């Protein structure tokens, strides 16, 4: 039973000024699956994931060619509004980046900017999102305290709740656990298994065990190219390319 393609990437190239950071990348991302992107630092995996919700548009001097089809529609077409796109494709960042406001306001920020004003409705969305991010039990009695009082792991789950609150279809995780301890990391990894039932998930990680634990598909990036892409088990047990094997067996990286 093959899953539907959510995102299709075709011949994607990216330049920062004169420097080419991504070269001819092609990739299928399946709906309701976790796709992990691994590779050594500077291989372009973070740059790649930021092409999927056009976050790279915010950086000066970036040039992109190729296509990224979300439900068969190229997100780089002229008639696509990147603001509307980012509502459909949410993102969780490397370092927890809660806004300096209350827990409630953090989660309600997205729904509010998209026009939801009704208080009962907002409260419902906030609770639902915090439950979805496995944080509700820890914060339900102090929604009005400042989000910066939470621990790093809680902050990151708050950022996940904040992303879920705008009801995205795809959630991108850019090394979400690199600033967290093993226990907090475990919680977020468990959470991903829940989240993939409702969302399509792409995660960039430099932690190979993490990719092996959480993902259904894995892509290996090296020097701006997607070198190998397959089911996670195949990549880890039977890599086709020598570079992939060298990387996952820890011979370089």
């Amino acid at each position, binding site marked *: 039973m093959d899953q539907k393609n959510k995102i299709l990437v075709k011949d994607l190239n990216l330049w920062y000024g004169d420097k080419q950071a991504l070269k001819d990348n092609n990739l299928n991302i399946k709906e309701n699956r976790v796709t992990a992107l691994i590779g050594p630092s500077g291989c372009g995996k973070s740059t790649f994931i930021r092409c999927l919700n056009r976050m790279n548009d915010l950086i000066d001097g970036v040039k992109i060619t190729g296509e990224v089809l979300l439900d068969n529609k190229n997100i780089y077409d002229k008639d696509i509004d990147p603001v*509307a796109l980012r509502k459909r494709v949410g993102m969780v960042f490397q370092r927890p980046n809660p806004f300096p406001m209350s827990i409630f306001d953090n989660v309600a920020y997205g729904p509010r900017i998209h026009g939801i004003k009704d208080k009962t409705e907002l409260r419902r969305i906030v609770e639902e999102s915090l439950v979805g991010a496995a944080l509700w039990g820890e914060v339900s009695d102090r929604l009005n305290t400042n989000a910066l009082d939470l621990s790093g792991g809680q902050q990151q789950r708050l950022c996940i709740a904040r992303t879920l609150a705008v009801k995205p279809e795809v959630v991108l995780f850019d090394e979400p656990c690199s600033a967290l301890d093993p226990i907090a990391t475990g919680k977020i990894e468990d959470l991903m298994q829940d989240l993939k039932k409702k969302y399509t998930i792409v995660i960039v990680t430099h932690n190979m065990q993490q990719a092996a634990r959480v993902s259904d598909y894995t892509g290996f990036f090296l020097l701006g190219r997607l070198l190998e892409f397959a089911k996670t088990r195949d990549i880890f047990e039977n890599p086709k390319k020598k570079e992939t094997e060298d990387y996952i067996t820890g011979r370089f990286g």
Partner: protein
Amino acid sequence: MTLLWLSAGSILLILCSIVLYVVYRGSHDLGVEFVLGQPENIWLAGGMLPALIGTLYTVLIALLFATPLGIGAAVHLTQYTKEGRTTKLMRIGSDALNAIPSIVFGLFGLTLFLYYLRMKPSVFAAGLTLGFMILPTIIRTAEVAIKAVPWSEIEGSYALGATKLQTITGVILPTALPGIITGVILGLGRAAGETAPIIWLASFWPPITPLSPADPFNSLTTTLYFLTSEAQNEQYITRAFAVASLLLFMVLVLNYVARALNNRLSANIRR
């Protein structure tokens, strides 16, 4: 080390001797009646209420004018323009504005409002003149505060599908608020203490309590100037020192209130 102590000590000494001397010389007249009473006999008896109201009123107008304009300019400089010739020019302009002696602002206000716009000397004209003067301070501090907002927060807002304007009003300005308020405090202190910019726009005599912004007014600083320049006996000088004490006290209180506000706001935005 001794040298550092010596310089720090002498600053404190100078400050204390000025404040103490001023308050001592004016102490004879100081009291509740002096602050809240109506003046009698050409400001020489009674209270300074009209001048106090005049000062607060003009400062309020100055802040109402300069704060939104200054924040707007800072947002434009940081968010809507690329670093380049235009921003450089705007920054040079704002720095130059900051360096202009306050009496020149006074001359400008006089020419613009009274000669060209044919307005009468009023709270409004004086407030705007003070507003021009404190504008660069507000722009510069707001700019620094906005630039200090972490990119990760801004990125977080965009990633939720926020537009640029929503990101500015929802994340950037609230986070930068304590810094912006600091700039407004600096401007406020300066506007309250200046005499030169409004010397041709205030009336010295008779005492007037301004109600509408179009009304003429007295200010503490211009009344102080009036009392000393017209001084005919010791009584004028004592009154002048009392006015100076009130002015010092008022700026101190305004600063304190603003600082407390700033602390409360930044307590919510700890980093």
